[in-house]
C-alpha cells in the first residue's frame, strides 16, 4: 500500500526534537521572567476603559505631587493631547475618578505586582507617572482610534492589524517609547507594553514627533506656565 505524501512528510519531520535540556532552559527563563518583571496591571473605567500592562514603573521622568494634608489630589497630566490640571477623587475602594476639561469622566485603579506576586495598591502618583510616559489609545466619538503621547495625537484606526499595533515615538527625554499594543478590541480595551527597544520580530510604525513637547521641555517651562510635565508641585498650587 502506498504511503501518502502527508504520512511520508510527517515521518520525516517527526525526527526533529527539541534539545534534551530545552525544558529546563525554558523553566529558568520563566522563573527569571517572574522575578525580574514588575508588572503593573491597571484597571480603568469610563473613557479610558483599558487594561494596561506595563513592564516598569521607573520610566525615569520626574513626577511631582501636591501634598495637601497628606492626600494628593491635584495633578497636571497629558490628556487627549493637551496638558490639563485635574482633580482626583479617591473613591475609597482603591479606585479613583477624575474629569477632563470637557467633563468626561475617567476612572482608574490597580495594583502593582511585586516579584513574588505580592500586590500593592497603586497610588495616583504612580498611575499618572505611568500615564504621562505612556502612549495611550482611545476611541473618540466618531469611533476612530486615536493614539496620544504628550501633545501628539494620531489617528491610528487604519494601522491596527489583527488587534495589534506597534508604534514608536522619537522622544529624546524618554527612551521608553516603543509601544506594543495588543488585543485591541472595538470597545477600547487593549494591552500595552512599553520598552526602550523594539521587539525584534515586529515592525514599528514611526509617529511624527516633529511637534512633540518632550518631558524636559515641558519641565523647563516652569511653575508659572500652563504646561508643566507630570504632576504639579505644592508651589504650583
Amino acid at each position, binding site marked *: 500500500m502506498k504511503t501518502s505524501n502527508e504520512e511520508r*512528510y510527517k515521518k520525516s519531520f517527526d525526527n526533529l526534537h527539541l534539545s534534551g535540556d530545552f525544558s529546563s532552559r525554558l523553566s529558568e527563563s520563566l522563573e527569571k521572567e517572574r522575578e525580574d518583571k514588575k508588572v503593573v496591571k491597571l484597571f480603568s473605567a469610563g473613557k479610558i476603559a483599558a487594561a494596561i500592562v506595563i513592564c516598569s514603573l521607573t520610566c525615569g521622568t520626574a513626577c511631582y505631587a501636591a501634598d495637601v494634608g497628606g492626600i494628593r489630589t491635584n495633578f497636571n497630566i497629558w490628556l487627549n493631547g493637551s496638558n490639563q490640571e485635574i482633580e482626583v477623587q479617591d473613591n475609597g475602594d482603591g479606585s479613583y475618578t477624575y474629569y477632563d476639561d470637557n467633563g468626561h469622566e475617567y476612572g482608574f485603579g490597580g495594583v502593582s505586582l511585586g516579584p513574588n506576586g505580592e500586590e500593592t495598591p497603586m497610588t495616583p502618583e504612580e498611575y499618572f507617572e505611568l500615564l504621562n510616559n505612556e502612549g495611550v489609545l482611545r476611541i473618540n466619538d466618531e469611533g476612530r482610534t486615536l493614539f496620544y503621547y504628550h501633545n501628539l495625537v494620531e489617528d491610528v484606526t487604519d494601522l491596527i492589524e489583527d488587534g495589534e499595533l506597534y508604534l514608536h515615538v522619537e522622544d529624546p527625554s524618554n527612551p521608553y517609547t516603543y509601544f506594543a499594543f495588543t488585543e485591541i478590541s472595538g470597545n477600547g480595551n487593549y494591552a500595552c507594553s512599553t520598552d526602550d527597544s523594539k521587539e525584534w520580530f515586529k515592525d514599528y510604525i514611526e509617529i511624527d514627533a516633529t511637534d512633540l513637547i518632550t518631558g524636559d521641555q515641558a519641565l523647563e517651562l516652569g511653575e508659572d506656565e500652563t504646561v508643566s510635565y507630570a504632576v504639579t508641585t505644592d508651589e504650583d498650587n
Partner: protein
Amino acid sequence: MAIDIIEICTKYGDRLYAAAFNITRQRQDAEDAVQEALLRLYKSDKEFESEEHVKAWLIRVTINIAKSTCTSFWHRNRVPYEDYMEEIPFEDDSDRDLMEAVLSLPDKYRIIVHLHYYEGYKTREIADTLKLSENTVKTRLLQSRKLLKTKLEGWQDEDI
C-alpha cells in the same frame, strides 16, 4: 483557560520546533524561536477559547519569530543545516531525503509545504496564518509539489 507553559511545551514543543526549523534551518535559531513564542504566551493576557486555539496561536507566533530570525546577522553566520542533519538519527534514508528535499526548497515555499503536510492546514488556514492570499498559497503549494516531485522518488501527484 489556565495555561501551563511547561505542559504546553511538552505537548507541542517538538511540532513548534519542526515549524521553526523548516524556516530557519538552524537548530539554535529554531529553539530560540520556540522559547520566545512560549515566553510570549506566558506574558500574554490573551484569552484562549481552547487548547487548539493556543496551538494555532503558538504556531503563528513561532513562524513569525523564526522568519524574523532569518534576517539577522547571527542567523546568516550559523552552521549549515546539512551538518545538523548528520546528527539526526533518521530511521530510513528516504526520511532524510525528504527532509533535505523540503529544506532545499525556496524560503517562501517551505513553510507552506510544512503547514499543509505536517499540520494538515487547508489553504485558507495557511493563508490566514501567513497573511497571504489564498491564491498565492495555492500557487506556491503547486510549485512546491512540482519541485518535490523532481527531487523525490515516489512523490505522488495530488489535487489542490
